[in-house]
């Protein structure tokens, strides 16, 4: 091979090599092309091997040309290789394609009962205010359910609602969780700050607005210097935590034998802010009964009614849940219909 032929070969190999590389349509074809243009048996390698036999001038000149050609081919190879890899991956990805509109795989989801959710929220507000939860039996004796609460046997309040009695003489299903007040005060000296959530019973036919079994959160504070204003402020704090910061509280006189003065407490409507709407009617939502603990009740529990005063309140959990979530039929709470329950998915702690 003479320098002239070498030069021709290099020129031919450039053209042939670039075209082979360009036409390689797979990584295998590209590997073959690489062997063909730059491999040991390639004409390019023959030229390189022949360089040593040329005179220095030609060697230098053709050596530079060969290097330049190798770099050009190498870079064409690299570029083609990248292009082919990209296409390859694209093909693989295409084959991996799924229908992303199909629903996701998930665990079954449970839910808490709306009364649990509401009770937890109410209890949570009071425990954050420093109140402790107390519980008591659902079957109560006459003393804790009535007498100690200033409701002696011939008291007209006993006729206000019908109670369910059990076969154990002197025992009944508690009509209020107020009985827990008595149990707590009998066993603990003031200060007392408690809430008593729980089930209560009434002899009533179940319909859209009545249940024979329902839930209350009863509150009690007994300490030195507790006033009616403390009751109002506490319930205001509670109502704002539950229904929003702008809520106002209104108290009207009402009667419960175990409190004096007693009141019925309404909260300005969270839907209409007190202007009147379908939820509230006249702008106020009647929420609960409350009052200052009757001194007779304190005395019944062995507490010095001159030194200590207190307030108590009882909130119906069903009532709050109904107002809150627009439940129109109370039977929904006790039927266990999944179509009702699933609407509370995700709610609650």
């Amino acid at each position, binding site marked *: 091979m003479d320098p002239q032929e070498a030069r021709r070969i290099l020129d031919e190999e450039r053209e042939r090599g670039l075209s082979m590389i360009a036409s390689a349509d797979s990584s295998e074809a590209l590997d073959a092309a690489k062997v063909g243009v730059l491999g040991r048996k390639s004409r390019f390698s023959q030229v390189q091997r022949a360089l040593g036999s040329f005179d220095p001038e030609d060697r230098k000149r053709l050596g530079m040309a060969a290097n330049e050609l190798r770099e050009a081919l190498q870079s064409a190879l690299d570029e083609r290789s990248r292009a082919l890899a990209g296409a390859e991956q694209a093909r693989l990805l295409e084959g991996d394609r799924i229908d992303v509109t199909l629903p996701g795989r998930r665990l079954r989801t449970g839910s808490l009962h709306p009364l649990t959710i509401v009770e937890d929220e109410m209890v949570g507000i009071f425990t954050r205010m420093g109140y402790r939860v107390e519980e008591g039996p659902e079957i109560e004796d006459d003393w804790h359910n009535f007498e100690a609460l200033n409701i002696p046997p011939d008291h007209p309040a006993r006729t206000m609602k019908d109670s369910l009695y059990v076969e154990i003489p002197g025992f009944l299903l508690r009509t209020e969780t107020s009985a827990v007040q008595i149990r707590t005060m009998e066993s603990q000296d003031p200060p007392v700050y408690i809430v008593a959530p729980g089930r209560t019973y009434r002899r009533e036919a179940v319909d859209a607005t009545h249940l024979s079994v329902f839930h209350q959160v009863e509150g009690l504070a007994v300490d030195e210097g507790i006033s009616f204003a403390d009751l*109002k402020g506490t319930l205001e704090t509670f109502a704002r935590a539950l229904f929003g910061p702008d809520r106002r509280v209104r108290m009207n006189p009402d009667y419960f034998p175990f409190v004096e003065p007693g009141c019925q407490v309404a909260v300005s409507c969270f839907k209409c802010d007190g202007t009147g709407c379908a939820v509230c009617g006249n702008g106020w939502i009647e929420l609960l009964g409350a009052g200052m603990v009757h001194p007779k009740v304190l005395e019944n529990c062995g507490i010095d009614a001159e030194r200590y005063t207190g307030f108590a309140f009882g909130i119906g959990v069903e009532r709050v849940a109904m107002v809150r979530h627009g439940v129109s039929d109370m039977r929904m709470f006790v039927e266990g219909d999944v179509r009702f329950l699933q609407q509370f998915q995700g709610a609650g702690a």
Partner: protein
Amino acid sequence: MKIVVSWLKEYCPTDLSSDELAELLTAKGAEVEEIERPWDRLKGVVVARVLEVRDHPNSDTLCLARVTAGDAEREVVVGVRNMMPGDLVPLAGPGATVPALPEPLSARKIRGVVSDGMLCSPWELGITTEHTGILVIPDDLQPGTDFKQAYGLDDSVLDIEVTPNRPDFLSVIGIAREVAAATGVPLRVPDVALDEDDEKADEVATVEILDLERCPRYLARIVRGIGHSPSPIRVQARLTASGMRPLSAAVDATNYAMLEIGQPLHPFDLARLKGPGIVVRPANDGERLVTLDGVERAFTSDDLLICDTERPVAVAGVMGGAVAEMSGSTADVLLESAWFERGGIQRTRRRIGLSTEASTRFERGTDPEAVPLGADRACRLIAEWCGGRVLAGSVEAGGAAERRRVSLRPSRASLVIGYPVSAADAARAFDRLGMACEVEDQDLVAVEVPGYRVDIEREVDLIEEVVRVQGYERVGSTVPPVRQVGGVPPAYGFRALLRGSLRRSGIREVRLLSFASQEDMEMAGGDDPIRITNPLQADEAFLRTRLLPGLLRSVQRNVYRHVRGVALFEVGTVFRMKDGAADERPSLALAMTGPASQTWAEPPRSFDFFDAKGVLEALLEDAGVRHWSVGPPAGWPFHPGRSAAILAGEDALGMVGEIHPSLVERLDLGGRVAAAEVDVQVLMAHASSEIEVRDVPRFPPVRRDLAFVVDTATPAAPVQAALLEAGGDLIETCLLFDVFSGPPLGQGKKSLAFSIDLRAPDRTLTDEEADAVVRRIAERLASEFGAELRAG
């Protein structure tokens, strides 16, 4: 209590509208539930004179009346022929409306004759509740006069919810007193001026009380020679609007006076009283009396009877007897006005199951001081409406109790209410309420409690009066300084934890009624249930001994309503009788049925035993119960081959399993139902919330998958327990990852495949060490279960 507003304003002449009155009374504790306007639809009815009454040409029952309301004459068809020419009658011409009819009147043809309007009965006008004849107007009114105007029926009625502590609100005067206190408009007293006869009542009849405790005061007045006519139209309208039935003028007078003053009154026909004399005494056991409602009732010695000198004539404070009942021929009346002890009336009322306007008032407490006032007012009305002579004076036994004196310390009132109250403030409030008081010193106000305020017994009752008069809206808003950290007791928090766990396991919480039926008892196999003595319905005869029956019924309701895949739980109390006392225990139950798979991505399957058990396992883990075991089959109502008791040591934690197919069929549940029930108290006793952290291992594990072939009947749990024991401390985890039977295994064989991680805390285990452990395991399982380690 229904209060007619115009009546109220007779005693407290305020300008306030009905709506304003309602708001004011509600703010003072007499909650107005509704404002009724019974004569709202009474429009266009005028007074007309009957000119002629003649037969309807085409009817035997109807007649035609020619009338004039001062203008043109018109002819109307009338159904009842009780009016005469010259009578005044209410005429509703075309376009007029009346309370009883939904549509305005129009001229229409009745049996071929055009009736130009209608003559009205008292019922159509909303004056009585009974449909009698046409109202013949007794008053001398000009024809053409508007009927509604003439009788002041542009009126409304406040329906007030009276709390049991305020029986004084069961009267017009009582409500007027409250309005007077709130507005400052002075209260008027009822007119009781009497023109008494020379004859003296106490010379005609006698009164004797044999039980002064049950009847501390009894007073009788006598009216002779009464006439018999209906009471005035406006009176009838007011009685009807107040919820009472107008009868005769004399009886209406006693009811009217009672509604006004709150003192129940009872008229006897004097001629039918033996003696004539009244004896108030306890009944003899078994003594009988036919009451005014025609029912013969028997009494006990705890009932109080009003008798004449020979026999009972009334049940004290509840209802009169038929023997001395007023009738159309009664000429002389003995009017009873008495004060009975509350509790006794309540007991009698309950015992005989008869509640009347009188008993309602007596059992809540009446005013002993109103006894003469009520009698005088009724006599005055009888004399006015029925004529007759009111005999001089009264016959009385017993008397009013002395008024209670209760003191108030303004300093105490300030403390309780939460804003400063001075002696003068308090005195002003009592003055407004018409209660006499005396400021004894700066911190002592003594109040004389009027008889009608049965609720005021001690200082705190006066404090309430002060804040009530001043207005609850004046009360400020403060929060007491609570010096403790709030929180929940462990049992309460534990139940919340269980609910959270079950919810995360995909189950929905229900809260069901606590009652159970006889059928539930059989379903649950419940022992020692607690019976409810006065259930409203038969299916609520017991308290539930288990949660499962109620839960299954709830599942059933969902299945019937075509809900797919039902999974429910309840955490609640169950009740049992234990040594004659109630044993209440917190319990937990869950039940699941139907499709368990949720999406296209899972193979379809239904809930079965292992779903319930898996939920239970997660629950036990969340609760921190580390040591528990599976016991024998759970028994009814579970499937004998697909259920188990769950034990923690010796204690029964609960049971898990599929519901027995026969019960599934009886409840028509359609397929397998997996369920569990757990005693929360036992669960909590075995729970631990302690977390003791061990170091995270630094050396790699050696993992070996071992498949053992055992008999199909061999349960997996003891195999795994033996494996762990044989493996010793080096076994870190052991997962049963496959259970398989069929070829190539022989008949009656199954393979249990465990994946075991072996690890030492202080070094990397060698293969030799691992092999030694595997050998130990294989030997143990071979000897104990005949297990064969499969090559793998």
